[in-house]
C-alpha cells in the first residue's frame, strides 16, 4: 500500500508540473456569471472608483489571488481608480502586494489612481462606518498618509462615491457586505469567491442583492480570456483539468485493481 501511494503522489506532482509547463490549453467557455461581472466593470466610466476588499485568509490566496489580479488589471486598463482594503487581517498584506504589483506593471501612481486603506477589525462596524464617513473609519491609509491630503482619498467620502464594491472572499464576508452596505446604503456589491463558496451565494445573486459573482481559478481563467491576457488562472486551469482527469482515471484504476483482486481470490476459492 505504501509504495502504490507514493507512486500516486509522484504521478500527481508530475502531471501538475507538466500541465503547467506544456499548457495543453483546453478551450474554455465563459460562464454567464463571469461575463456579467466583466461587463459591469467594462461599463463603468473611467475615473469612477471601485472598492476592492480582501476578505480572505492567507491560505486561500492561490485561489482568489488570480481572480483579484484579473479584476485589478481590468480596472486599471479602463482607467478606473481602485480603493483597496481588508476586513480579514490575513488579507491585508496580500491585497496590498497584489494591487501594488499590478499598479507598477500598468504604470499607475499611488495616491491618485489607487490607494490602499489597510485593515479594520470589527467588520460590521467598519462596513457601516464607511457608509457614513469613510474618513472616520480610515483617517490614514496603509502607507500612513493622511486620507484628506491624498488626491484620491479626499475624493471618497462614503459609498456614494463608490461605483462598485468587490469582496474578494473565502467565507461569509460578502453576506455582511450585502446585509449592511447594500441593504442600507444601496451600493452595488460583487463577490470574487473560492469555488466551494459559490453555491452558498447563488441565492443572493438571484435576489439581486449581489450584483455579480466570479469564482475560483476557473473564474479567473474566464476573466483572463475576456481580457485576452492569459495569466495564473489560465495556466492553473490546464493543471486543474489534468488533475481532475487523473483523479477520474485513478478511481477507475482502483476499481479495476479491486475487481481483479476479488476475481483472483474467488478463483482460488473454487480450486480448493
Amino acid at each position, binding site marked *: 500500500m505504501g509504495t*502504490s*501511494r507514493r507512486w*500516486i*503522489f509522484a*504521478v*500527481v*506532482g508530475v502531471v*501538475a508540473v507538466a500541465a503547467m509547463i506544456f499548457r495543453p490549453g*483546453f*478551450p*474554455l*467557455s465563459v460562464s454567464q456569471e463571469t461575463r456579467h461581472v466583466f461587463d459591469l466593470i467594462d461599463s463603468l466610466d473611467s475615473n469612477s472608483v471601485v472598492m476592492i476588499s480582501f476578505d480572505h485568509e*492567507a*491560505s486561500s*490566496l*492561490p485561489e482568489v489571488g488570480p481572480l483579484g489580479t484579473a479584476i485589478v488589471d481590468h480596472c486599471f486598463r479602463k482607467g478606473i481608480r481602485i480603493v483597496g482594503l481588508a476586513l480579514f487581517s*490575513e488579507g*491585508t*498584506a496580500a491585497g*496590498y502586494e497584489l494591487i501594488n504589483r499590478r499598479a507598477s506593471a500598468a504604470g499607475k501612481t499611488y495616491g491618485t489612481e489607487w490607494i490602499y486603506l*489597510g485593515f479594520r477589525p470589527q467588520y460590521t462596524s467598519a462596513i457601516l462606518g464607511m457608509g457614513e464617513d469613510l474618513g472616520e473609519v480610515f483617517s490614514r491609509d*496603509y502607507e500612513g498618509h493622511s486620507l484628506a491630503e491624498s488626491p484620491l482619498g479626499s475624493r471618497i467620502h462614503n459609498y456614494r462615491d463608490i461605483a462598485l464594491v468587490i469582496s474578494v472572499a473565502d467565507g461569509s464576508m460578502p453576506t455582511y457586505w450585502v446585509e449592511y452596505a447594500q441593504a442600507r446604503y444601496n451600493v452595488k456589491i460583487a463577490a470574487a469567491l473560492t469555488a466551494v463558496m459559490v*453555491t452558498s451565494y447563488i441565492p443572493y445573486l438571484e435576489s439581486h442583492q449581489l450584483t455579480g459573482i466570479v469564482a475560483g481559478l*476557473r473564474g479567473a481563467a474566464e476573466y483572463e480570456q475576456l481580457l485576452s491576457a492569459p495569466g495564473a488562472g489560465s495556466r492553473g*486551469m490546464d493543471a*486543474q*483539468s*489534468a*488533475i*481532475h*482527469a*487523473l*483523479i*477520474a482515471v*485513478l*478511481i*477507475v*484504476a*482502483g*476499481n479495476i485493481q*479491486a475487481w481483479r483482486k476479488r476475481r483472483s481470490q474467488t478463483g482460488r476459492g473454487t480450486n480448493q
Partner: protein
Amino acid sequence: MRDRLAIITATLAGAFMALQYFITLPIANSAYRAILSWMQIIAAFAIVVGVFGVIRLHLERIGRKRAGWLYSVTLLAGVLVMTILGFAGGIDRGTSFQWVFDHWQAPMQSTVFSLLAFYIASAAYRGFRARSGESAILVMAAIIVMLGRVPLGEWLSPILPNVSDWILNVPALAAKRAILIGIGLGMVATSLKVIAGLERTYLGGR
C-alpha cells in the same frame, strides 16, 4: 458548591443567550455582546495557559534529552522569534514579524494545505470502490461532477457540465438539506441538555 455554581452559570448564560435572540431591547443586545466578548476573553486567557503548557512540555523534553529534543529546540525558537519580533518591533506592515509571517509561516501553511491535492488522489484510488449499488452511485456522481467542472469535461461532452450542475442542484442538494436538518436537531437537543444541566461532561462527570 463550586460545581453547582458552574452549572448555574451555564444554565443562566445559555438561557439568556437563547432568549435575547427574541428580544429587541437595546440592553439585551448590549448584554449579549458583553457576554460574547467575555467568552472571547476567556478563550484568549486560555491561549496563555495552552502556550505555557507547550513550552513546559518541550523544555522538559530538552532537559531530559528525550529523542528528538533538537526539534523541541526548533519549536521553542519559533515561538521565541515570533514573540520577540511581535512585541519589540510591532506587527504592522514592513515589520520583521510580518516578514516572517509572509515568507515562512504563510507559505508553509499553504503547503500543508496543498498536500490535500495529493491525498485526494490517493483517497480516490482507494476509497471509491463500486462494491455495491450504493458505492457505484457515489463513484458515478464523483466522476461526472469532477469532469463536468473543468474545460476538459466540456471538451469531452458538451452536456457534461449541465449534468454535473443538475446533480449538484437537485439530488445532492436534497441530501444536504436533510443532513443539515438532522444536524440542526442534534445541536438543539445537545444544547438543551447543556442548559438543562443534563450534560455535564465539561465538568468531568455526568
